[in-house]
């Protein structure tokens, strides 16, 4: 028997990592999303270096200077100035920090709440599940924007209040997704096998269940981050979000809308930045979902 030349390629597949990479790179949308997101994150991190001016420095005698591409614009303020004469480019750059901070913080708070509830409901079922389902229904039945508006209106807006309010309001999707994902994983035999091996419930939840639902968690987290950023923008738009002079994009849109009919760039610039960020996060989230989907199924 001559074994060597006889061997055929077996049904074994390429390594997990290279397969994953191929799937990731195959998702052009995902690559674009992550790319844009990375740029925005970099801008946020390097804001002090990148911003040409202090974003808070006002100059009332140089107000509403248009961006450089208008005849009246200049390169001193590449994107012009706002209604208090502050450098618009610097404010947009610093605004990235705020939006990202909001997105990330809200997701951490709501993710912790929602995941805990969802895991408990999905794993233990029965009464716990009923309770969580009730909580979710109750939460879902109150429109986020309305409750957030009311609470912020009452106790006054500020960055951290907005973050806390949104964090305590937006856990529902985490709970719902984590619940069903946990239920699904819970019924799989490897959980039973771990139980039969004597593993404690905590261990099973943390080591067997959680890692397997983590991809769903990440997908929900990205989409929720986008929605939190949008909500903050909406609150700020109604004047009940973060407070000036903080350069939040939502606030900038809100302030610029007064000028939209005559100085459209004022609203278009933060509006585009916001849309771009949301766009990038959604692309990344969608892509991620597609990337993990087949794995979840098999």
């Amino acid at each position, binding site marked *: 028997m001559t074994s060597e030349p006889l061997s055929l390629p077996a049904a074994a597949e390429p390594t997990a990592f290279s397969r994953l990479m191929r799937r990731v790179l195959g998702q052009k949308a995902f690559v674009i999303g992550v790319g844009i997101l990375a740029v925005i994150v970099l801008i946020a991190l390097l804001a002090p270096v990148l911003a040409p001016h202090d974003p*808070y*420095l*006002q100059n*009332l*005698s140089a*107000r*509403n200077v248009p961006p450089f591409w208008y005849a009246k614009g200049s390169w001193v303020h590449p994107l012009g100035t706002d*209604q*208090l004469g*502050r450098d618009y480019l610097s404010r947009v750059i610093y605004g990235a920090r705020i939006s990202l901070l909001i997105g990330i913080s809200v997701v951490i708070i709501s993710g912790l709440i929602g995941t805990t509830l969802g895991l408990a409901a999905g794993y233990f079922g029965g009464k716990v599940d009923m309770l969580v389902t009730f909580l979710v229904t109750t939460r879902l039945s109150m429109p986020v924007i309305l409750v957030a508006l009311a609470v912020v*209106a*009452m106790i*006054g*807006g*500020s960055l951290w209040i907005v973050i806390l309010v949104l964090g305590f309001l937006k856990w529902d999707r985490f709970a719902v997704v984590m619940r069903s994902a946990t239920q699904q994983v819970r019924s799989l035999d490897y959980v039973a096998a771990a139980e039969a091996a004597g593993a404690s419930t905590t261990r099973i939840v943390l080591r067997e269940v959680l890692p397997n639902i983590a991809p769903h968690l990440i997908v929900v987290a990205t989409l929720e981050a986008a929605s939190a950023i949008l909500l903050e923008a909406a609150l700020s738009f109604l*004047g009940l979000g973060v*407070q*000036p*002079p903080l350069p939040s994009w939502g606030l900038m849109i809100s*302030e610029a*809308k*007064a*000028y*939209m*009919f*005559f*100085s459209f760039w004022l609203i278009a610039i933060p509006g585009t930045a916001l849309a771009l960020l949301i766009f990038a996060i959604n692309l990344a989230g969608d892509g991620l979902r597609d990337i993990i989907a087949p794995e979840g199924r098999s």
Partner: protein
Amino acid sequence: GKSDNSVVMAYDQAPESVDPFFNNVRIGVIIGQHVWDTLIYRDPITNDYKGQLAKSWKWVDDRTLEVELREGIKFHNGEEFDADDVVYTLNFVSKPENKVTTQQNVSWIEKAEKVDKHKVRITTKKVFPAAIEYLAGPVVIHPNEYYEKVGPAGQNDKPVGSGPYKVTEYVPGKSIVLETNPDYFADSPKPKPTIGKVEIRFIPDRQTQMAEAISGGVDFIMHVPKDQAEQLEAAPHLQVVSGETMRIVFMQMNSQEGTPAPALKDERVRKAIIHAIDRETMVKEIVGKGSRVLNTICFPSQFGCTDHGAPKYPYDPEKAKSLLAEAGFPNGLELDIVAYRERNQTEAIIGYLQAVGIKANLRFLQYAAMREQIRGNKAMLTHQTWGSFSVNDVSASTPVYFAMGDDDISRDPEVRDALNKGDNSVDPAVRNASYKEALTRIAEKAYAVPLYSLPVYYVATADLDFRAYPDEMPRFWEMTWKK
């Protein structure tokens, strides 16, 4: 528009009720003055008092006013106007249990009595020289029979007054349509209107209002911020009219006992704050035409208001910094500032404070919430405005904030005494002197930052001929179409 002799006005806020006693918003006053009449009328230009529903009036004693009423006036529903209407209205609104919203406009009334069909007597609770001013402003007269029947709610549903316009359609929260009252009495100081129909639509969003103005959906908007008004001026079919109002803007600084910002107890810090703000530039760049810089906390036209002898604090950031350093804050300090309107101006103030090292965190609140903060001794800096209810007397402004009332957060007894003296005297000379004393001391101690008066900008179709008054009252009855 001119073609159908009607004006569509947009306003950003709907009144809770169109009954003037049951709202405290400007649009309510505007509707009130068009649909109802008052006993007395103050000419907005000359400030002379004229009889409107009253033919004449005189003080019988310090607390009793006798009013002779005009005859032959009819309410919109045909009800005849006489002493019963006045007596009923005044007695009704002055009773706290009737829960009138604008308590301060009526709480001075002790009672009203009918002398005969066309004569009434009004008693004030204490000596109250400003009574005429109130009777010429917010205190309108309702038809007693109708009002008795339908109450405040019914008066809101189907308002009936005696004014130059009557309400023909009202959808609360949405719009109200006023049409000329053909039977309006000829002798009224308010002339018979030319504009046949006034529709007031409530459009909360300022941009939407502007869009409507640009696209011709609305003929008249007011309270347009300076920048926007200037931009709208470029539109050929629009005109911009602006004027000063009695609304003053100032910053209170909490320096009373237990203040959350002890730094403000230091006069040098307070002075530094005033020096830090470039009020001239603010007025010129962002507040707008008609505004003037103030040096004392009152409106200059008000009786008793003066800044003679009061120290002035010009814009001087270096001085501000050195004052702060002297006070022990060479590296600056951090303060909260509460505010409730003109957010861009607050933002500019924050910018100025930041430049001298004071980090001011904005807490932009609803008026009520801000009031709560101030009264609860939780506020540090406050950015406030005060319109004095268009009452042209210092008693309606400065004492509110410095006579140790609920809103006084500097609480200087000397100031209080001087103000009380002015309030409770009928002698103009005494009043002038005491108010001056108070205002000067407030300025010397730098208890508050007097900023500027607010202008009002109106944007209207170019065809409309009208003027702006300090009381922020558009008077449709005297508007005409340009030829």
